[in-house]
Structures are given as structure tokens and as C-alpha cells.
């Protein structure tokens, strides 16, 4: 299962974090910093899976933004790798060409999207339009 999902930029600033297993607030900062260091230090020609402590990190880089997913050993790395891309595609569709700023300014919406896709650390939905349905409904509600 998925333990957490992080979005961090090159400077190591967290842009989004979601934990599916409780982690103390104080530990989060350390974990995030460590995880980010781990991923940032890797070169482009290195594979996207890192064995980290007792679990694995799957990361993907989009421009200056890294999406890092912590998964248990039993998770299929490739499918998580795909999931990350799927997530970014959904963001891209919703924000039409998503950027780091979109994510920062619309954190709540990104969370909604993420919650539609992953719950309990499990993939719930991968269909883009179905993922976005609640959000568009919400936007309409806000407009109306």
C-alpha cells in the first residue's frame, strides 16, 4: 500500500503531503527532508525506485517538481509509477497545463483530486473524468 505522497520542488520545499499511515508532525519534516535528499541526489539516468529504510520510494520528476510516493515492499513499483503520472495528467487536465503555482494556490483542490484517486493508501479511481466529477460539481456549486 501507499504510505505517503509528497510533492516537493528542487529546493526541497514541500508543496503537498499526504500521509496514509500516521506519522508524527515532528517526524514528518525529517522524513520529508530525508526523502527529498534521497531523490534529488539521484541522476536522471538512475531508476526511479529507491530502497529507503524498510520501504520503497517511487519518484517522478516533472520540471522542478518531484512527486515522491512511499510504498510498502509489497506494492508494485511500476503501477505506482504509472499512478503518479496518472495523477499529474489529471492535474494537467483540471488546471490545463499545471504548474507548481497552481498546486500551491489550489492546495485544497489538489487534495480533492488526490483523495478521489487514493484512499487509505489504495488506488480508488484512475479514470480522469470520474476523478474530476466531484471537483467540477463543487466548482459549479461555488459559482452558483
Amino acid at each position: 500500500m501507499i504510505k505517503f505522497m509528497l510533492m516537493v520542488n528542487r529546493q526541497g520545499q514541500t508543496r503537498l503531503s499526504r500521509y496514509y499511515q500516521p506519522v508524527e508532525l515532528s517526524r514528518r519534516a525529517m522524513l520529508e527532508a530525508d526523502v527529498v535528499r534521497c531523490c534529488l541526489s539521484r541522476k536522471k539516468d538512475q531508476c526511479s525506485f529507491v530502497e529507503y529504510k524498510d520501504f520503497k520510494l517511487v519518484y517522478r520528476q516533472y520540471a522542478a517538481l518531484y512527486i515522491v510516493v512511499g510504498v510498502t515492499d509489497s506494492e508494485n513499483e511500476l503501477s505506482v509509477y504509472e499512478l503518479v503520472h496518472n495523477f499529474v495528467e489529471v492535474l494537467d487536465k483540471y488546471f490545463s497545463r499545471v504548474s507548481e503555482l497552481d498546486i500551491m494556490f489550489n492546495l485544497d483542490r489538489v487534495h480533492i483530486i488526490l483523495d478521489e484517486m487514493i484512499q487509505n493508501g489504495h488506488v480508488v479511481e484512475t479514470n480522469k473524468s470520474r476523478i474530476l466529477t466531484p471537483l467540477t460539481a463543487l466548482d459549479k456549486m461555488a459559482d452558483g
Partner: protein
Amino acid sequence: MALKIVKGSIDRMFDKNLQDLVRGIRNHKEEEAKYISTCIDEIKQELKQDNIAVKANAVCKLTYLQMLGYDVSWAAFNIVEVMSSSKFTYKRIGYLAASQCFHESTDVIMLTTNQIRKDLSSPNQYDTGVALTGLSCFVTPDLARDLANDIMTLMSHTKPYIRKKAVLIMYKVFLKYPESLRPAFPRLKEKLEDPDPGVQSAAVNVICELARRNPKNYLSLAPLFFKLMTSSTNNWVLIKIIKLFGALTPLEPRLGKKLIEPLTNLIHSTSAMSLLYECVNTVIAVLISLSSGMPNHSASIQLCVQKLRILIEDSDQNLKYLGLLAMSKILKTHPKSVQSHKDLILQCLDDKDESIRLRALDLLYGMVSKKNLMEIVKKLMLHVDKAEGTTYRDELLTKIIDICSQSNYQYITNFEWYISILVELTRLEGTRHGHLIASQMLDVAIRVKAIRVFAVAQMATLLDNAHLLTGNVQRKGICEVLYAAAWICGEFSEHLENPMQTLEAMLRPKVATLPGHIQAVYVQNAAKLFATVLKNQEGNTDGTAAQETSTLMIERLPLFVQSANLEVQERASCILQLVKYIQKLQQKDVEITEEVIALFAGELNPVAPKAQKKVPVPEGLDLDAWINEPPSESESEDEQPKAIFSKEETKYSRPRHTEVDEKELAKRREVRKQEQANNPFYIKSSPSSQKVYQEAPGVEHIPVVQIDLTVPLKVPGLPMSDQYVKLEEERRQKDRAEKKKKEKKKRKEKRSGRGRKHDSCPESEEDITPAHMVDIVTEEMPENALPSDDDDKDPNDPHKALDIDLDNLMEMAARRPLADSEKLPVRSHRAAETLKSPADDGDAESAVTQEPKKKSSKEKREKKKDKDKDRKKSKEEKKKKKHKHEEKGEDLLGGQEDEPVVQSEETSEVAAPPTSTTAEVSDLDFWLSNAPVPSNTQEAVTVAAAAEAAPVPEAASGTAPDSEPDEPKDTETEETKSSKHKKKKQKKEKEEKEKKKKKKHHHHHRHSDAGGEESVQNGTVEEEEPLPPMSNYCLLAENSYIKMMMEDADQVSDIQGNLQDGSQVVVSAIFENKCESFLKSMEFNVLDSLNSKLQRPEGSGPHDGLTVPFQLPPGVSNEARFVFTMQSIVMPQKLKGTLTFIVKNEDSSTHEKLDFKLHFTCTSYLITTPCYSDAFAKLLESGDLKCSSVKLEGVNMPFHHLLARICFHHHFSVVERIDSCASMYSRSIQGHHVCLLVKTSAQTVSIDAKCDEPTLLGNVLDEIKQTFSQC
């Protein structure tokens, strides 16, 4: 009031929203903390306002700050306020904040229960959705308990959106409130078949996650998952399911067998790499759980390896990494298949990515052979030089040593080379593995006698150049090597060329900077060297040289006497005094060399780790007895006040002695083993017979290969391992040339040989002879060592090899199914494509004999058969997909059979995991049991109705006689047609349930002679099958209402206690309701004969029927078991019987009956009993067996099929098999031994048989003959 609202909204306009906050933080990079603290103050103000919009905005900002790592727990109550807003826009902000900030110890959570409940039942699906999502993050045990019911209701919500979420959150609820699992599970299971794929996938997710933790409890769902797997197209779901199967297969090898086929199909067909990877992983898991070496599995392994190769060759680093990862799993069980891809893996060693290189390194371990070891290690050494990071280099170092030392240095042909490698490794900077290198040096030097000269020379050089090792502070780890070097030089000092020089090197002042334990070894071995030096100078008449040595010692040793290390100090002062004394004697010209040498005389031999344990306890010695009477309890208490330290100690240590029980002893033994394993002086594994090179007389005198000293050495005195590679090459070439010569000679002599092939092919493993005769010393064992536990079996024992070869099958088959104590393996349906069946037979039978009283297990077994049948049927139907609709036989995967039984059991099972109910297990068995049977059944040999039906095997269509409307020869043509009509009608009515129905509905056609005409043998052979599936059941009788199948009489006998007064035979009959009505009050009756009697409950007359203990709803089958008592078992028996039952419709009920004949073959009195070859030989020698033989002509099947058939149908087990000849054994329920010797040549099979009961033997042979005449 209005003013307030206006004021509020105006305030809001000036408030920062999230965007402003983010911008602000970006604009205040220098003083971020300060900025944020002002923001938090603002937020606190905002939260004090009544306006919910303002609050929501504040909470939203807090969420962001929380992400940045600020503690916002103080706002928990405000978050709850926002959560309870009626407006969804705010509510979701509240929930989001809660999901991010709340954790189990957040106390305000308990305030939310009612709010959440309200939201869950809200008419707005998004309210519910957001509540569910939030809940999944912060659910507590209390919340879980209070809301479990609400969530459970939501699992059946009309909207899939809600169902999906509810299902997923149930997992969290289960975790927090385990009691909910039991009531919720049936519904959860239902969701596996939800029409919405999203919900289905959610349910799969949850169950997979549950099952991964407790796979055993979910085995019963395997059929359902299997169905999903073959029907789903969603890769996400497939991955989950396949992963789940990966977790289940270790528990149930039969499941694995069943999975192989669909998985390989997926591997072939899928384009999704993630799915491919998962399939490969699971196939590997399956193959690991199964025994290796089954022919059709090597194909699967090949497929996996091929696919992995494609992954590894891919330019995508991710795929490469995963490919290597999966490859290493295969390596453990199937090293051969991986070895062929050595090139690729070596290539990966050069990869840019360290993770990939590390994975490749893991794989290398299994790739080496005698031939390529040097080459691979050379390559690794290059990497060691190049490696930049110490971690990677250390990894390389350990791998090199692992690779070389594996299997007791199996692959090393030249130990000089290995020593050189070790010496080269000492030059690594900053390695932590000095200890590892040291222990290798010691091990090799001690155990490989021939290498000592060389090793000692190398070690002496090392000692001489010790400054190179110790000079740098970074190199601390490596100085461990000096420990080994000093010890080797001291212990084997007789090989030293210049002991004086080494002695001098060992006594340098710099040594005092080494760690204490190394100094200690230095001092001790300096003494040994001293002795050697004295000995060397013995011949000299002039004693000055010897005295000089003593002086050297006396000069240098005081340095060590001052050492802070106790050990060093003690040894040094002791030796110093000794040397001083020697010097005194020397000055008096006393000859003392002999005495000094005697100090260190004798050779240290390696001791086996188990040696201690094997020392026999001398007679009359009771290790547990007290040496002194323990002080009485009161006494010690009295003493307590005065007790001084030492007394207290005794007091505590003594009672502990008494507590040493078995466990404690075992633990200690474990600890000791551990210690020994870590001790370099203990030699770990004992070399197996093949690996030990024959000790040549006078090993020491065998000349060591000359080192070409013209090759420039890199470090003075330090050898270059590379030269050995060259040398080795040359040597091998020479060897080969010589061999060729020899072979040529041979060929000349023989002239007619196929030698050419040999000649041209590259040298094989065996061709590589070790560079010099090497004696890997075996460990010492104490005299008259106790022959103890199995693992100590002498590797030379010829029985051991036999053990593996023959009993492999048996043991493995026996252990696995039995490992699951829940169920009994079934003999009859572990159908056999291969030799496996005899083994299965064996275990089933032995299990039966062990537990003849276990009724439940018997039932299980029977159910299994039942399922087996259904399964076959469904498979057949699958094949005839054209008729799918008419047949309604689509429960391909046994989902249907599960329904009635499993569902009821499920609930209890879930909550009480360890005791999964028998019914379930049996259902699963049922589904699994015929896994390897490719399709419809064919011959059923020991069948009741065989005699009648055999002449017209095509008269009916095997086990699915009801399902062939177009089967022209079917005796029931008319009925089937009518039934077809009926079905169509029904189909319209119940389209939904169609899948679950598999039964046909014949009506109003009773066969007057059910036993004769209707009972059909499952004998349709019209379809070609690659491997002959086997089954022991047969259709006993059937009519339009009911079908009765009988498993061939399955015996249970009380062999141990009750051999004399005959035995019992158990007949399992499957009753299957084929009509739409309810069948009840079934009574089973058989006309007893003189010899055999149906066992009836006490008090019933000899002609009373037995009530079948169940009723059959439409489409359901069940199994009943009947016990017969037999007097004589030497002859086959036939019994007539009747089944009466009531058919109950909505409006009417009618009595019906069905006749049948039971056929007890002699075979059915045999019990598969494993027999070891030695026991078998004894039995044959005993001479009280009668002989008989039979010849079978025109048997056209592979020998192992033939054996499998005999094993399967006639309950034999293979004792020993050599080529096309096999000995087999079985035993009757009354204890008759039946031995077979089966030989085959061309198409003729001859069976020589021996038995102590000739009539029985004759009948059994006849039956065997019949088996083969039918195929």
C-alpha cells in the same frame, strides 16, 4: 445583527486567503518564520469570529501551514466547527484540515461522531463522500465502533461513488475495530461482484490487503478471485489480485498449479509492464512454492526469464531495475535458468545507476562456476578500483568474498589466486570489512593445507608492509587483516622463508598502536616464531644467532608488557619471563630448542560446529544432577542480610541451573552456534563428498605451481591476482591439450567414437582440474560421535542421495498439504499429469491411516471429490462455448459451488481466523483438487459402473451427460432436447442468476434401469489431451432429478489396531440435484452380501436404508459417506443399492428412486503406503510372497504416465525408479503387501508382482490390465 454580518463580510474582504498566504510566504523568504507567526496570529483572530466563511478561510490557511510543518493542533476545535458547516464548500475544507491534522490522540475527534454520522447519511453524495474520505484518515477505534454500522449500510448505497468509498474505508474500520470484520465480511465479499468496476476494485483492494496479512483465512475466496482474474480487464485490479494469489500460493500449492496457465497467458498477452511484472513475480512465487523440476514448469520459468531479459535489456532504467530484482528471486530456486543470462548481468555491472549495479551484484552470486569465477572476480576487482562510494565498494568486497567462498569454496580451482585476491582487497581504503577478509584468510590457510606455504609467504609480506595498512587513520577496519596474518605466520611458521625477519616485523614498536586483540595475537605468535627461529638455528654450532633472537624478544616485549590491554599484558609478561629463562639456559649452552618447540607442538585442526554437541555423554553422568546439594531456600534467606557479594552470586546462579529446561537449552545451543558461526576458528560447513579433493599422500610435498616472478608486482611482495588468471588460462589450455592428446589416443584405439563433439566443445565444469591438489580439511568430530539429528546426516551416505531422488516427490507433496493442519489432502483427485500423484496418494493414505477417526476430514475429502467433478464439468462446458447458453454451465471457476456452503460459513471464519471451518477448506479443496486436470475427465477405472458402461464409453458424455444437446449418441437425446427448452425459458426468467446455474433440468424421464443404462463411465475420450488426466470417480447413476457420483471406494482402515478382523471401506457419493425442485428425505440403501455390509446405525435392521444427512436445493451437490465392512478383500465385489428421495415442488411432492450398483474392486482395498527401498528389498527377500506377472501390449504412453496411472488408480507408490524400470509398493487394508516391478520396452509393459495373497494379486493385476486396455 445585520450590521454584524456586513462587518463580517467586509472583514473577509481584507482577510488574506490561501493564495495571499502563499504569496506572502514567497515574498518573505528571509523572514519566513516571522511572517508566518504574524499570519498565525491573524488566523487566530479570524477563528474567533462567528462568520463561518472567515473560519473556513482560516482553517484552509492552517492546512497549508500544517503541511509546512507548523503545529496547528490548537485549532482542532475550530476545524470541527468548520466540518459541521452545512455548506459543502466549507465542510470540505474542514474535513480536509481534519484529515491532515487529526490523529488518534486528537481529543476533539469524539465530538465529531454525530456530525460524521449525519454527513454519512446526507442526501448529498458529496457530503457523504467527503466524510468518508476524511474518516479514512482519522478514524479512531471509537469512531470505528460507532460508525461501523453506518458505513456498512453505505456499502450498499445506490451510488457507486459512495459504495466504492465505503468499501475502502471498511479496511480502516476493520483495523481499528476488528469485531466489525465478521458481520461486514459477507457484504464485502458481495462487493467483489459489484456491477460497478470501481466498487469491485475497491473490494479487491480491501480483501487483498486483509488477505496479505492472514492469507490462510482467505484461501476460500480463491475461486472467486480466480474468476475475477480471468474476467477483469482492469490492470489495477488484476495486479492486486495477482499479488494476492502470490500471497496465497505458499499455503496451497495446488492453487499455484492452477494459476500457472492463466498467468502465463497474461504474460504473453499483456502490454502493460506493471502487470507483466506482477505476473512474473507471482509465477515465480508459485514456482517457488511448488517443487521444482516438473517438466511443464521449466517452460514457465523460461518464459519468466525471457520476459525479464527483455525488461533488463530495456533502456528504461526502471524496467532494468525491476527485471534484475525479479531475476534474483528466480535465482534462489532455479539458478540454472538465470545463469544463461550471465552476459546481460555482467553488462549491468557497468550500469551508471548504482541501484542497478547492486541488483546485478546480487545475481552474480548464483552465476559463478569453476570456469568463470576468476573472470567474474577480475571484473569485480576492476569495479572495486573504480568505485567511488565506500558503500558500494564494501558491497563489492563482501560479494567477492561471498562468491568465492560459497559452497565451501566449490568454485575455486586455484587457492593461490584466492589468497592474492584477499591480499589485494586489503589495499582497499576505508573498508569496514577487514574482519571478513581476515576470517577468510584464516579459513583458507587452516583448511587448505597445500596453500599454507604460499599463504604464509603472503602473510609475511603483509606483516612486513603493515605500515601500509595501518598508516592511515581511515584504514582502521582493515588492520583486522593483520590479526589473521600474524596468526597464520605464527602457526605455520615452519613454512616461513625468513622467520627472523617476520619476527622482527611483528615486534616493531608501531604494533603497539594496533587494537588490543591484534596485539595479543602478535605477542603469542611472536613466541611461536621464536620457537621456529630457534629450531632453524639448531644446527649452528655457534649459539650467538639464537641468543640474538632472545635478546630481540627481551628488548621488544616490555613494550607489550606495559600495554593497557590485559590480554596483551598477560601474554607478554608470561612470554617475556619465558624468553628470559631461555636466554639464561642458552648462555649456559643448554640445548633447549626441543623444549621450546614442544610449547607449540601439534597441529590445530578445524573443529566442526556441531562437534561439541555430538560428544557422547559418558555413561552414568547425569548433567542435570547437582554436584553439591543446593542450599535450602530458608538458609539462603537467613543468610541474606550478611551475604557478601560472592555468596549472593552463587545464590542467584544456582537456582537458574534448575530452570534449564529443554527450551532454554535449545536457546543456548542457538546462541552458541551463533557464536561459533562468528568465530573464525570454527569451520562452518562440512564439505560434501564430491567437493573434497582426495587427499594425496604427503600433501605438503606436492610442488606448488611456480609463480612467474618475472611478472612485475605492483606492491613489492604483494601478488597480483591477475597473473593467476593468465596462469590459470595457460594451465587449462595445457590440460585441455593433454586431454585432447589422450582422447586422440583413445580414439585411435577405439576408432568408432563420437569423440569429436567432445573435442570441440568448450571445457565443461568437470574438466577443470584444480591447480594443485587441494585438501579442504574436514572438521574434526569427537570419537564415537553420536549419530544425531537428521541434518547431521552423513553426506556420504548413499541413502541420502536416494532420499532426494525418490522421496523428493513424496516428501514434498506430503509436507505441503499437511502443513495446513486444517485439511486432509485427498488422494483421488490430485490428478496426475506427472509422477506427483503417487506421492499425493501416499500422503493422503498415510494421513488417513493415521487418523481414521476424523470424520470431518473424511468429509472434506469427499467434498473435494465432489468439487472436482463439478470443475471438470465446467471445464468441459467451457470448451463447448457454443452451447454456453443452453448449458448454463458457466460457473467455470467454481464460484457457484461455493455459494451455498461457503457463504454461510464465511462469517464465522473471518472473525475466527485460525479455525477456518472445514466446509470452507473442503470447498476450496473441491475447487483446487483437480487443478492439473486439463479438461474433462476420461477414464475412471475403478468405478462402480465400469462393467456396465465400459462397452459403450461414448454413450454419454462423461461427467456432463446432461449438457450435450447435440450429442447424437446420447441415450437421453429426447430428454436433453426437452430440457433445452426448459432452460431457455428459465434463462429469460432469471438472466441474472444464469451464471450460477449449471444444472440441467430433465423432467419426467425416469430410467427403469438406472443402474444399468444410465450409469455412465466418464469415458469420453473423443478430445485429445496432452496429458492424461485421471479421476477416480464415476457416475454411479443418474436420472432427471439427481445425479450420483461415486468416488471409488476409498478405504479407511484401522491398520494399527485392527488388522485381523477385516476393515472398513468408505464410499463417498456425490449427490447432485439437477432439477429445479428441492430434494429431501434421501435414503441410501444397499443389499448386503455375505462378505460386505453397509454399516448402519445401531438399532436399525439389516435392510433399513441410511438417511442422507442433507437436503439438496436446486443445483446443489453434496457428498455423503457410507461405511462398509468387508470380510474378505481378495475378490472384487458388487452391491446393488437404491436411493429413494422426495422431490418437492412448490405445489407437490413426489417420491422417486434411483437404482445403482456399487463395485468394489480389489484395488480399492489397497492403500498407498510409501515404502523405502531398503524395506522393500527386505520384503522381497523374505520369500513369503507369491509371484505372478502380467504383460501389457501396445501401451503407448510415457513411462512416468504409466507409473502415475498405476499409482493413481491402483494406489501404489513408487519405491524406486531406474530408467524404464520401477518398483512399486502398496498394501491392502488387511495388511497384504503388494510389490510390483514394472518394466517397459517399446510398447510392451511387463509387470512382475509379488504378494502374500495370490488371489488378491491376481485380481489387482487384472484390474491394472483393464486400466491400460481402456486407454
